[in-house]
């Protein structure tokens, strides 16, 4: 997996990108690596892209409920793919701000 130097990429204290436009696939893989995901599988990408696309088109990250219903990956698998919190981690890898919804 291609990890890169993250200098010049603006991030908040928790590591979320502050400007989604600075994102690319190498950035995604580098952040995934930091979070302990050594390989982004096609299932990971499905979620990361779904999170990112939803945020870019609606201005809001989807809830975990919506993620489980609409992304094509169910809740159980979401937590297998992203054990440290699917919505939060997929948002971070997808280069969008931390989701603020309660669900």
């Amino acid at each position: 997996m291609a990890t890169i130097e993250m200098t010049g990429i603006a991030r908040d204290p928790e590591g979320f990108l502050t400007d989604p436009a600075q994102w690319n696939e190498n950035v995604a893989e580098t952040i995934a690596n930091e979070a302990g995901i050594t390989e982004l599988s096609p299932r990971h990408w499905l979620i990361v892209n779904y999170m990112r696309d939803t945020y870019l088109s609606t201005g809001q990250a989807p809830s975990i409920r919506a993620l489980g219903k609409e992304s094509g990956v169910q809740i159980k698998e979401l937590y297998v793919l992203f054990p440290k919190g699917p919505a939060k981690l997929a948002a971070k890898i997808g280069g969008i701000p931390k989701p603020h919804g309660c669900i």
Partner: protein
Amino acid sequence: MTTMTDHDLEQLVTPDAREVPKPIQKVSIVISKGSLEGIYPGLIMANGARMEGMEANVFFTFFGLDAITKKHHDRIKVATVGNPGMHIPTIVGAIPGMSWMATKMMSRKMEKLDIPPIPEFVEMIADSGAGVYGCKATVDMFGLSEDDFVPHVTGVITGGEFYEKAAGGEIVFT
């Protein structure tokens, strides 16, 4: 009179107080009430914990057990009597259909916020890997059996076993 400088004040703070608190790794939540407003907070907290990557357990006891029994889990209602938070006179809250109506209204608002109905929420929490437990004492008291529970229940355990499962984490009673 001498005034204290920032440096002096800094000296007064013990090293312990300056340490950043460790993040919570695990929570075990007790849900003991059977009303809508008694059940949702615990579910939201449990789901929120899993979303943050924390380990989570939910222990349903007394009327909280209604949230995981097939007979009651899809008909949990808001208490419109004895609930000052409703801001309606008790006598109005007691009118037949009032609780049904308040529940309908609240459910609609929650649906808008993407908060699932209780049966779906319990399933979601179980699927997220949280432990979903019923309280043995209550199960015996109400004369319930395994068949009475929704399939997402991890097990029926005693208070002692709950403490074992909660070991090393925070306990939240609701």
